[in-house]
């Protein structure tokens, strides 16, 4: 027990400040800080996300996992991942949406209570960039997430960095 406690003490608090504004300066830095307050005001520390992998290569999932590490500490912003779409305010969907997952994704969407937010993650999920072209529609794939359910915000990247994901999630809350 003592080595464990010593280690916790030595590691300290690693959480970094919220991410800088997106490259296109869609949301300026002051906005982000205001957003944090807004998230708290609207959702009372409880934005909940249901992640749905609808056909990704699992690269996006690795970065979504990273959101919960000590550096990004998404849960520290009052945002957490939940197991059921019925408990979720937001669907975080990675793609391309396969035909075999199309139905499951629609069911998850229908199960999410209104008003709901959908964030499409990754080049495949957004249908952009090189990976989006590589994984376009074919006999087994519906392509981008927006081809199946309505999307509020897109977070491109192959895979998008945890910072880009945080920005996307905050931007989606802003749109609501």
């Amino acid at each position, binding site marked *: 027990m003592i*080595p*464990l406690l010593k*280690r*916790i003490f030595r*590691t300290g608090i*690693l959480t970094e400040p919220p991410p800088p504004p997106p490259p296109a300066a869609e949301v300026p830095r002051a906005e982000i800080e205001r957003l944090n307050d807004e998230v708290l005001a609207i959702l009372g520390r409880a934005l909940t996300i249901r*992640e*749905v*992998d*609808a*056909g*990704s*290569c*699992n*690269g*996006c*999932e*690795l*970065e*979504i*996992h*990273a959101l*919960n*590490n*000590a*550096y990004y500490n998404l849960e520290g912003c009052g945002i957490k*991942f939940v*197991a*059921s779409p019925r408990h979720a305010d937001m669907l975080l969907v990675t793609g*391309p949406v*396969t*035909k*075999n*997952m*199309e*139905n*499951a994704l629609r069911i*998850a969407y229908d199960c999410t209570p209104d008003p709901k937010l959908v964030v499409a993650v990754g080049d495949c999920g957004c249908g952009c960039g*090189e*990976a989006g072209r*590589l*994984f376009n*529609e*074919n*006999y*087994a*794939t*519906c*392509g981008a997430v927006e*081809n199946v359910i309505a999307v509020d915000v897109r977070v491109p990247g*192959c*895979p998008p*960095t945890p910072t880009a994901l945080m920005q996307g999630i905050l931007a989606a809350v802003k749109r609501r």
Partner: protein
Amino acid sequence: MLFHAEPIEFTAQAGPGAPAWTGRAADGEDLLRFAVSVHRHGGRIAALWGDDRRREDGCFRLNCVFSLDEGHAWVTLDLRAGGANDGDCPFYPDLSGIFPAANRMQRATRDLVGICCDGGDQRAWLRHGAWPEHWHPLRHDSVHEVGVGVGFPNLPSDYDFVQVGGEGAHEIPVGPIHAGIIEPGHFRFSVIGEKVLRLEQRLGYQHKGVEHRFVGTDIAAGAKLVGRVSGDSTCAYAWAYATAIEAACGVAPPPRALALRALMLERERVANHLGDLGALGNDAAFAFGLTQFMRLKEDWLRLNAQLFGHRFMMDRIVPGGVVLDLDPPALRMIVEQCDALGREVKDIRSIYEEHPGLQDRFLTTGAITAELARELSLTGMAARATGIILDGRCYRQGYAPPAPYAELGVRPATDERGDVAARVAVRFDEIFESLRLIKELAVGLPDGDSRVECAPRPCGCGLGVVEGWRGEVIVGVQLDEEGRIARAHPHDPSWQIWLALEHAVLADIVPDFPLINKSFNLSYSGVDL
């Protein structure tokens, strides 16, 4: 040359990749006899896929890769339409009676190419309801109208799970969307109370037609695609693909490129083991482990981003070499990070090992035997955690590892217990060994170019085998007359290890499943393709 005195003549594949031989079976009988002989000599089935060669050779082709002591034997069997066979769906001998791991590969081959085995399990595997039974995407004459809302209707499908009867027996269906942030798949548990009587998996939810996407692309686009078969193994796939293409085109990558590839592959191995060791702690309610390991992983990935330009090093390995170079300050940073990480992991390992609650969950949970591992043709960490010394990077009787591992003298990490604790121990040991390898590679990085031109050679073919962090990643490539990809098949070690998971849960209760599953952490995308 011949293997086991069977009448299939093999030719060795040139190039610096893992040793591989190609040969043609004259008929189904020869293939079957060869498979039996491989099994008798302790070999494994490594991969199986089909190919429509009607335009070029007037036949369908079955490709089987067997793993022998010496290396990999790629056996092809031409299947001519007509004759005693069904003209539209040619048959080949069922190999699943010899190698149970062949079952799902055979079913996937039928769904995609429309050649099938003469008996055994005939349930569809990748085809759920998105296309009709007698339409096969990898046949050249398959026409499909692509677009949203066009093409075939996406019909709901049923799957014939094996039912378990008896008083008190019931089923727990899980998935395709799981509770955590993981890929989709369906698990059907048959249980009495908490006790698992049977687990049957139904996968294919991630099927996005990767093999169909390869057809007709050039070598460069193929490299991008193969790096996205399974994102967590992007370096392993890219290297296996590059080896296959280089063998097909008669190109030898420079030594510096091979060393840099190995350095990236070992970094990928460390990153995944760090993440999984953390998640394993978390699944046993030891959140401290997750926090610590995810922090270490993040540091590791950040150095990847800084030095390799990508957190997972995607698209850095290409046919002909690598598209990056490391200068001496960068190499020094790598060595320093390895030293620092080694100290931290050693420290946390002792905390893991001395935590009674954690060990109580790990020990004896999800155990498989070495005998089962051999029977299911397992490779990689899952096989080594049963005590089997099998690592493509290490010397063994009759086998010499490919460059640059031959000079590094890699020590295989094994553990004979076969349970979650064994897989945790093997992962810890592999982290330390990989850190040593990374340091050796960084210190002794050969001078010279890191990339040579890789001009496509028409009609070439090649096989690449790389020991990824999960196990053996295989890519087989066939080029067409214009030097484009006629057929490429990536094979993930998860094909075989998924079967082991079905066995590993049998002695345990349902709440142990997440822990057992995570101890293997298999790829869905890599097998659904």
